């Protein structure tokens, strides 16, 4: 593995829980290299260790073995090194949208006035204009996710982890949010690691897909998505897209059968 080449390198990460004498392998040793500026997706059934992997990268859980390298340096067990957006939007109900978006910067020590000044243009630009002084309770599901993602992006970390951010949205909103995310990805140039169990979403958004399987949680295959960018919605009906989607689905089924056989 070429250390300096990859933005994020997961070196032989594994996670074993020991509950009452029985070992549970949440994540079998996994090695993963993500180059800078790439959009990488992890797909897999629930219990395949996606969330464990994210928690380890974010420094919220200590791996049993392995290291997390960012720009070649060991950051295993350090918090605040990556932007992490959890499944729920987790907006604070007592803060306005503006102050919620500014939260990450505020924690990083930016004075609140400056943090607000930097958050405001983004709020206006990315579809929350007019809502900056509203409280989250008056926002729709899609808008809440937008606010949560802007909060994550404003922390100014090169790597952003997104854990099924659109999982709870209806199909139409989800499609809009995907377009929106692609726009943001193009504008910000961050390295994104995206967890989903929606195969179409993964193919549509990513440069590379890692397919995972359960029992033990592991990465079974990595495949590059060689569709040109910028991508248009119409791409989903091209033969290449359909073939790729089918390939991923087959892999997921195979993983499931493997787990059943074991």
């Amino acid at each position, binding site marked *: 593995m070429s250390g300096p080449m990859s933005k994020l390198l997961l070196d032989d990460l594994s996670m074993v829980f020991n509950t009452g004498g029985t070992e549970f392998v949440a994540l079998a040793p996994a090695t993963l290299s993500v180059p800078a500026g790439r959009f990488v997706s992890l797909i897999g059934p629930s219990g395949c260790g996606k969330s464990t992997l994210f928690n380890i990268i974010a420094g919220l859980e200590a791996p049993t073995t392995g290291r997390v390298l960012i720009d070649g340096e060991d950051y295993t067990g350090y918090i605040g090194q990556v932007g992490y957006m959890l499944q729920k939007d987790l907006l604070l*109900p007592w803060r306005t949208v503006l102050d919620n978006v500014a939260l990450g910067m505020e924690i990083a020590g930016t004075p609140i006035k400056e943090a607000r000044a930097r958050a405001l243009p983004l709020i206006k630009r990315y579809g929350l204009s007019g809502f900056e002084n509203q409280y989250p309770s008056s926002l729709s599901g899609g808008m809440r996710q937008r606010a949560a993602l802007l909060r994550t992006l404003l922390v100014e970390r090169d790597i952003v982890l997104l854990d099924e951010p659109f999982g709870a949205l209806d199909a139409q909103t989800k499609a809009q949010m995907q377009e929106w995310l692609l726009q943001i990805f193009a504008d910000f140039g961050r390295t994104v690691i995206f967890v989903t169990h929606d195969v179409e979403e993964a193919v549509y958004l990513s440069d590379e897909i890692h397919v995972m399987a359960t029992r033990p949680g592991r990465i079974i295959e990595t495949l590059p998505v060689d569709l040109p960018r910028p991508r248009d919605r119409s791409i989903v009906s091209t033969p290449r897209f359909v073939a790729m989607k089918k390939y991923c689905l087959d892999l997921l089924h195979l993983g499931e059968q493997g787990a059943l056989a074991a």
Partner: protein
Amino acid sequence: MNSKTSSLPASMSVAEPAPQSKTKLKRFARRLPKRKIWPTWALASVQGVILAGFVALWEVAASSGWIDAFFWSQPSAIAHTLGIFFAEGNAYVDIAYTFRSTIFGFILGTSLGAVLGMSFWWSRNYALIMQPYIICLESIPKLALAPLIILVFGMGLASKVAIATALTLVVSTLTAYSGVQAVDRDQEKLFYSLGASRWQVFTKLVAPSCVPWVISILRVNIGLALTGSIVGEFVASQHGLGRTILYAGQTYEIALVWVAVLVLSALSILMYIGVSWLERILRKGVVR
């Protein structure tokens, strides 16, 4: 498909019930019950009528001898005494005295309790060690300690404040601790993922999350603090509405007892309004 089915001739429809069954089966038909709220003036006038009726009944019953006016007093006598109480007695000294000890006790008990309860967030071990003591403190009937508190803190204001504080402190502590335990784990995770320190998590997440819990005890604490002050005055005091009630009871001035109770109620309502106002400020943005 549907349009075809509906265009079938009536004779071919199998769903059509036989004509004789129509007379046998009475269709179940009930409307959604209507709940209409009367206009405010109507509600208020009914409330007024009930109050006036109660007062009138009391007056008539007392003057016609159905109830003993010596023990129960009567509205006219109470109104008369009320006038004397404010015109001649040192009413304002007594009111201010009770009001002051209640407010001090309320503020001290609520804030100390909230701080103590939230402090349990800092260490699980500390919380676990303190738990039995807190439960013990809760189970002690604190009013039973009133004579002791008077001995320690003296006859003055301090002892009343101490009793009011003791009553409100434990409830506030337990409620604030419940608030701490209810803090969303994922929310905490988000803060740490942003690189937050423990102090930042406490000030920006834990403390604001506890605000609704603290709000919920404010109203209860008003009543508790008032009870504490009055019991303190019952045991030993030179001023206050509690002392007035005790004195009036011992000298069979029942009308004066009622006057003091009325003034206490008015005081309590006043503090409720104050607390509601405080709530609105604290609740800003927190939708519950």
